[in-house]
């Protein structure tokens, strides 16, 4: 499990699947989700397999989530913002 060296720094609040989680200003959405113990960011279109952030540098696209209603956002490249609504992405992110 991942832990923060300085838990007090997580002063910002966003939402994952409707539940509040804490984040440090400047964190990526992917880091914030992992710190909150999230182990499913999306499910794959073909087999419905669970996936979570893998490379953290924008290469693998396994961290695709829906952010504030917009699908296919790379959580590892998106900085957190107060009140942000993050949801798991299912299928190809087009509601199909």
């Amino acid at each position, binding site marked *: 499990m*991942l*832990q923060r060296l300085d838990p007090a720094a997580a002063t910002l609040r966003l939402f994952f699947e409707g539940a509040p989680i804490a984040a440090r200003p400047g964190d990526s959405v992917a880091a914030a989700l*992992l710190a909150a113990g999230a182990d499913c960011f999306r499910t*794959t279109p*073909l087999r419905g397999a*669970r996936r979570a952030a893998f*490379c953290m540098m924008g290469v693998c696209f396994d961290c695709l989530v829906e952010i504030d209603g*917009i699908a296919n956002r790379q959580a590892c490249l998106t900085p957190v913002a107060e009140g942000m609504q993050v949801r798991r992405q299912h299928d190809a992110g087009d509601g199909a």
Partner: protein
Amino acid sequence: MSAAWDVVVVGAGPAGLAAATLAAGQGARTLLLDEQDAPGGQIYRAIERTRDDPALRRILGPDYTHGDGLVAGMRACAAQYAPGTSVWQITPEREVWATRAGRSEAMRAGTLILATGAMERPVPLPGWTLPGVMTVGGVQILLKSAGMVPEGLVLAGSGPLLYLVAWQLVRAGKPPAALLDTASDDNLRPALRHLPAALRPTALGYLAKGLALRRVLRRAGLALHADVTDIRIEGDTRAEAVSFRSAGQPRRLVAAMIALHEGIIPAQQMTRSIGCAHEWDAQQHAFRPVLDTWGNTSVAGILVAGDASGIVGARAAEHAGRIAAWEALCQLGRVDAAARDRGAAADRAGLAAHRAVRPLLDRLYAPRAEILRPADDVTICRCEEITAGQVRAVVARGCAGPNQAKNFLRAGMGPCQGRLCGTTVAELIAAELGTGVAEVGYFRIRPPLKPVALAELAAMDTEDAP
């Protein structure tokens, strides 16, 4: 963002920072585009933010701190820096299309320096798609950029970054539970041939650091498993355990987090999409763009510097960035060839000194065949969930290359556009056909290189078009 620039640099890691700083310092109108929200690339990730965090700086070690000067130089120079900007298309005519904060823009470059760096070599093995499995680079990014450390992590693989991250986690007071070292003893003898070149002063520094780091790991009390093969990550909905062989003996460890690493390879998506010629590097087991000694690609006015040119390391990348910038200035007519040669002389010496250790490292940590060409049941395309066996089967049915495999299987057609499976697909096809990877080639890469919404394209001001 203005639409016409003398020099556009893509990537704000060591090569890009050094290139942009030099070009701007010589009076060229310079734009530095970077996908991350802060400069430094992956090696100096979050370097400005960690300046106020001495505890984290101590954990990361002195090599990281070297990035301070590079970033400060870029901040002080006249180059315009555009963070959070993803380049999704570059044409051979040097038109650059990029998206920032949901808005796309186009611009034109007199010369382009691509400093897009490297990615970690994909490590396809059973269970590598399960939540709880990450790359070692990903774990280090969490440490640098978010001050996060894993508890009970199992590290598996080989190469300098693997040992560095293990060392950093020891310093953070969270030593990994175990380190599964996949480096093969068979690499030792052939690597020795490259030892003399690595005994020059700068190269020797790398070796001394590596040995000191391994010493710390041996004393830190983590379980070190040598000569590891047959790694299999077990779990239903997430990683729960890892089984493997160490020196042939079967082992199994309970593990909720596993990080994999087998070295890094050039990021070739951008140079491929432009149509630059590439070649297979048999020492680094990776494709790289064909370049001259200034970093010129086969496409006029488009240069590559740093790890995107073939893995050279962060310090060498800095020198390569400046060498490319001198060449760009020369092509723009801002300096003549004599001034370019004079300007780049010190950086040429620096580049050679830092590169000298590379052949030894490449050979010492050459990945095993089971990673390059995994067993049939292993998923090799994470996006479309295609196995190595499916690729072998289409080759048996007459598939002659990666682009045909893409048509047959959809491998390489998912969101990552083949970044994670391209090299493996080429390796598998080459092995099945009994030919070289160079002959088999790679996926044809087409823009957009990053997802762009149709609405974003429609909203583009046509006046913006170059």
